[in-house]
């Protein structure tokens, strides 16, 4: 098994590079903007794919985890600590080098938590929350489980909407760029496009590898831990993208649907499907019919190809091709 696992990942990484090179040689580098954004959405899809496809649980409130991670980071990195500089906690933080001074959009000075520290904190908090609610929630079954996850997503969404500290309906803007290593910054600037494309899809590849390893090991016992870890990856992704964060229940349903039409227990199918749909939507290909097209695709695929459009056989075919065997007939 492990050989195929690596082959898949290498193929995936190769396609990521191929797409970047293609945009480079054809002078269409601006596509990377939407490609990068789609990459971050793909992280959520990986987490969901694990939960729905492999663990057999439905979660319609997944965007709640996405929001917890994202908002925690965004809040910590934008909250100005200048006024409490003298306080004990702030003092401790600054001694350990976890604070950064930066210039805000209008030239003022702001003192805030270092993005790395904020990110780690966000991951920790997401894992803890996932662990705490995971226990009782996963005892529920069927539609009751669906309702509980939807309810969790709604609670997160409404708390954010009702809280001034999280920017209420406006969300948090001007999240600072994310310096991974000196010279390697996560931001929305056009000059950083190529780099950010690789950061985004690099995270997706890392997520895929993590998931494949888990799936192919003895999964059962690790379920709760994975649940949190994957979502934390989503959290890391969103803040780096300098997105203004907005939790949305409807979007959650959209993610579930994407995983379903990609093929339930099929990571690659879900990833490719999610990538294509998000990319086309972000490019605005369908104009005012964006949602209608999405609905029509959903119905069509579920009616005619309920196992997902991109089935596992796809990769069996690829493998068969490389090993020189005849592609096998589809099994259905």
């Amino acid at each position, binding site marked *: 098994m492990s050989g195929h696992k690596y082959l898949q990942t290498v193929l995936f990484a190769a396609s990521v590079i191929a797409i970047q090179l293609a945009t480079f040689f054809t002078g269409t580098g*601006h596509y990377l903007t939407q490609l990068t954004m789609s990459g971050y959405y793909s992280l959520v899809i990986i987490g969901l794919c694990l939960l729905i496809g492999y663990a057999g649980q439905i979660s319609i409130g997944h965007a709640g985890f996405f929001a917890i991670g994202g908002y925690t980071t965004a809040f910590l990195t934008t909250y100005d600590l200048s006024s409490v500089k003298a306080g004990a906690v702030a003092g401790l933080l600054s001694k350990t080098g976890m604070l950064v001074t930066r210039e805000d959009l209008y030239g003022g000075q702001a003192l805030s938590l270092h993005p790395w520290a904020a990110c780690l904190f966000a991951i920790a908090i997401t894992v803890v929350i996932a662990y705490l609610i995971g226990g009782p929630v996963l005892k529920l079954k069927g539609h009751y489980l669906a309702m509980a996850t939807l309810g969790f997503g709604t609670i997160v969404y*409404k708390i954010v909407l009702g809280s001034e500290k999280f920017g209420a*309906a406006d969300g948090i803007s001007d999240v600072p760029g994310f310096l991974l290593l000196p010279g390697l910054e996560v931001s929305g600037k*056009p000059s950083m496009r190529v780099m950010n494309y690789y950061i985004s899809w690099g995270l997706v590849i890392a997520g895929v590898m993590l998931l494949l390893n888990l799936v192919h090991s003895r999964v059962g016992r690790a379920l709760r831990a994975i649940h949190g870890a994957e979502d934390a990856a989503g959290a890391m992704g969103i803040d780096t993208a300098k997105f203004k964060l*907005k939790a949305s229940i409807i979007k959650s349903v959209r993610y579930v649907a994407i995983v379903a039409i990609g093929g339930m227990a099929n990571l690659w199918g879900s990833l490719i499907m999610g990538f294509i749909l998000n990319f086309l939507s972000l490019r605005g290909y369908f104009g005012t019919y964006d949602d209608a097209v999405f609905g029509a695709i959903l119905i069509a695929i579920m009616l005619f190809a309920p196992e997902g459009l991109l089935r596992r056989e796809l990769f069996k075919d690829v493998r068969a091709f490389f090993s020189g065997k005849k592609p096998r007939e589809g099994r259905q």
Partner: protein
Amino acid sequence: MRVFKMLAVFLAIALVTVSPVLAAETIKIGAILAVTGPAAFLGAPEAKTLEMLVDDINKHGGVKGKKIELIIKDSGASPEKALSFAKQLIEEEKVFAIIGPSTSGETMKIKSVAEEGKTILLSCAAAEVIVNPVAKYVFKTPQKDSHAVARIFEQLKKQGISKVGVLSSNTGFGKAGKEQIEKLAPEHGITIAVNEVYDKAASDLTAEVTKLKAANVGALINWSIEPAQAIVIKNARQIGLNVPIFQSHGFGNIEYVKAAGAAAEGVIFPAGRLLVADTLPKGHAQKSVLLKYKKDYETKFKEDASTFGGHAYDALMIMVKAIETAGTDREKARTAIENIKGFVGTGGVFTFSPQDHNGLDVNSFEMLTVKNGKFVVLADGEKKAEKKDVKKKK
């Protein structure tokens, strides 16, 4: 194999759609509008207005001999999409300027993108933060929230009311209004007894208005753009909360008056003069502009013109005016907008400056009220009548 096939197909799609055939003689103007989705009542009339105007301008030879090429992107009020489209319009289409977005949340999201891309952005959204603090390339055409609030507070003072209850929806629009009300209340001597935020999809607000009634407020101020603004006045009247009701400029849509029926009578709100164009005095500066836009729009689309479409009208006309003065150099056109003085639009008379990227003053709002299911100017005589009427009800 199919993976590669898929990639190939995907790349082919990408390449075909890119081929940017740039006709040298056009001026490209992008528009990011919420044509569908929860803010469609803003974006749809804005998009229609732009299409109508651009057709008309091109029919008459364009601007300085160049035709306008309009690219409308439907964001569905999603900030993520707006961001993606803004980058597309700036980096790929290399548009001369962008009109929109329709909502404040989307505008705030792309403000920095427009700045970095040095592209003029003429927002059709209301929130004050769009132009305060001023960003070099970002302008907006709707009147400011703070002016709307100031007009309402002046009116409250005239009616001798100082204790109010404030309701707003949990949207960017509601939030912006609520902040201005909280900020300006002390200097106008207004106390806010109840300050509640409700869900934008709220279907009944009886409990909220009951809270206001219990607090014995002198007036109700509601700030939202959803159907909730019609629901709230109905519920208030049903439970016998007979204090004056004030709404935001978001109420300037006759549909809500129809929906609220008898409950809408006597609601007071600030709005641009488009809604009362017919009744303006003959010499009024805006009268001819308003009547022409209203007539053109209503003949073409067979629906009532709204102040929202007017915001797009103003944005495009200001852009055209700037190009007429400064030509198609982006930097010069930007400076030209800052130098526009006394430009008559649908929202008011615009006078821009490097410090003021909105160009409208507090007088661009007129206080309107609803009488027999129609918008009318709240004249001084009527104001007194209103007061008496309310007292009688009490």
